[in-house]
């Protein structure tokens, strides 16, 4: 799956519902070119859930905004392909993408208080979302809004529909946000950190709700988060992003039980877990995420990688390719199996995981 294979110009429409091929979103700035997303490819079918995990600044939010065409058009340079249900979106005119937005693909944002307009009632905002894509009267749209609020579990929806966002609690607001995103039965739903701003108890409710609604609508779901716990709950497949690119991709089981990239190991060890002996401290990944302007040469993760010296000069000179390490298991998403972007040979990675990393996670 090298980049050269994907850059053919007139690619045929893929069989998957959503497919990204070598997506690049770059922003020229005064300080240099910011490569927010740099060669990202993945596929997703309806009814399946993909979790995109990464630290702040790894490009995961820009990816989702790029799919919806919500990136800043004035200064972004986008290349690659985004195929949604047989339509290519990168080259499509903005108006065509706009017509799909909210109808075929919808998004749930991180902080529902700032993501909803403070001056309009929750109902009006849902009605607005519904009426852009459906030519119905206000009364019909209002009834639909009440229905949607009821479906996402808001009590007394016929009364709450006239409330303003600030009159809702955090969890209720996120439910309303979900109702708004689902109002036109989107086939692709992207949730950008949907539970980050919420209480832990409410987080679980929202995740349950999203799982139920996904089954009901048979939509393709992308969950973007830095919280591995969230994706463990919901995802079929997980894509780990680092420095604007995918560094490991696999089924949820692959990522949690057979991870092969040192960065994924780092993510797993920095996650607090109750089934683990309480240690004095978590094991954070050393260093900070890379600058997206001056991306480190060679392997992007090499400056922070504890095993970088095992591959000699290659870590700092040669960009590792994203290679399949194990064929797909057939279950879950099953796209492309388990892929890792690392210079170390698969056998060495597996042995490191089994002997060094995994024991640390389980006992310590």
């Amino acid at each position: 799956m090298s980049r050269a294979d994907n850059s053919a110009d007139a690619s045929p429409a893929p069989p998957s519902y959503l497919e990204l091929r070598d997506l690049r979103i770059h922003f020229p700035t005064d300080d240099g070119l910011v490569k927010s997303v740099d060669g990202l490819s993945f596929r997703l079918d309806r009814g399946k859930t993909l979790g995109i995990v990464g630290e702040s600044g790894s490009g995961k939010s820009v990816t989702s905004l790029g799919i919806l065409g919500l990136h800043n058009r004035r200064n972004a340079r986008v290349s690659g392909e985004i195929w949604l249900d047989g339509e290519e979106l990168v080259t499509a005119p903005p108006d065509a993408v706009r017509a799909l937005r909210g109808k075929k693909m919808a998004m749930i944002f991180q902080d529902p208080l700032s993501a909803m307009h403070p001056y309009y009632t929750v109902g009006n905002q849902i009605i607005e979302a519904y009426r852009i894509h459906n030519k119905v009267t206000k009364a019909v749209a209002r009834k639909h809004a009440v229905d949607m609020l009821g479906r996402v579990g808001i009590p007394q929806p016929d009364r709450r529909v006239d409330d303003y966002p600030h009159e809702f609690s955090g969890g209720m607001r996120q439910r309303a946000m979900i109702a708004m995103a689902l109002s036109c039965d989107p086939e692709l739903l992207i949730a950008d950190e949907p539970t980050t701003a919420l209480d832990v108890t409410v987080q679980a409710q929202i995740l349950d709700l999203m799982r139920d609604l996904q089954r009901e609508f048979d939509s393709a779901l992308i969950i973007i988060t830095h919280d591995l716990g969230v994706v463990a709950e919901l995802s079929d497949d997980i894509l780990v992003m680092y420095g604007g690119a995918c560094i490991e991709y696999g089924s949820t089981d692959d990522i949690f039980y057979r991870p092969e990239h040192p960065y994924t190991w780092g993510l797993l060890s920095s996650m607090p877990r109750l089934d683990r002996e309480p240690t004095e401290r978590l094991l954070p990944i050393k260093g900070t995420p890379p600058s997206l302007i001056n991306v480190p040469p060679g392997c992007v993760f090499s400056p922070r990688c504890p095993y970088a010296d095992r591959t000699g000069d290659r870590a700092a000179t040669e960009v590792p390719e994203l290679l399949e390490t194990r064929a797909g298991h057939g279950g879950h998403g099953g796209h492309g199996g388990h892929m890792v972007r690392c210079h170390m040979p698969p056998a060495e990675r597996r042995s490191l995981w089994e002997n060094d990393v995994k024991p640390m996670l389980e006992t310590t």
Partner: protein
Amino acid sequence: MVTYIIRRLIAAILMLLIVSMVTFAIFFLVPRLAGATPEGMASRYVGRTANAETAKLAAERLGFNDPVVVQYGNYIKGIVFGAEYDYGPGVEKCPAPCLGYSFITRQPVLNDLIDRFPVTLSLAVGAAVIWVLAGVSIGVLSALRRGSLFDRAAMTVALAGVSLPIFFTGLISLVVLSYGNPFSIFAQGGHYTPITENPIEWAYNLILPWITLAFLFAAGYARLTRAGMLDTMNEDYIRTARAKGLPERTVVAKHGLRGALTPIVTIFGLDFGLLIGGAVLTESTYSLQGLGKYAVDAITNNDLPKVMGVTLLTAVFVIAANLIVDLLYAVVDPRVRLS
């Protein structure tokens, strides 16, 4: 809500009383402290008096010998119950609400104010329509095309607009567009036709003053709108609006501008309230007989009752505008709850 309004109304009346006290003190107490005699005060009040005898009589009859506090009490009593002024040869009646009586023009001040008010109101309303439309739309366009040639040009003109005084822009407009030169397409100053008589002539005569006044205000509103739009267009809810698939026009007007509107409404209320109390410079420049010109003339002629009256009226407008703005706030921003 009702209790809030009642409370604010009571506060407004108290505020007016304070304004009236301060104004009264400036015109009636300060001269006395500075050494003016009751006779001197009375003579200024009634105009030229031939001899000391008449002045003394006038001071006696008009109450200038009373302590200033009593004089103030009488003034307020006049507003509530009306007053009668015995000036010697006869008695002038001034029915409630009596804002004073000018012996120079032999008119109750209130009648003058009622005569003058339509002129100022016409000026203010027309100018307000122009400056809100122009200022807000220029501000929105500037914000959307931040850094463009249009933005820079508009903001430069706006800077000129807020910096240049009316008596400069007004006179320039008169010289260029009026006064018998080839471009004299607009009326010279000093003409006013009531809208009820001839709306077209009314508007024609007021166009230049409207534009001059609107230029000053539009500049400020353009800058305010631009700053507000730059803020709101970066809000998360704008991204949400786009994510719904709304056309950009709707995103800007319904979501962006709506979010930036609160400070504009606030400033507009206060500006308009102050303006209908008299646009002193514009009215003077164009010789419009409005409240502002009235105030200037009253001060020039040392006609104290008129000055008192027009000051109080302006205070009423400003305080009312404040109250309305505060009430509107709850309408504009539902997060503001009045309790």
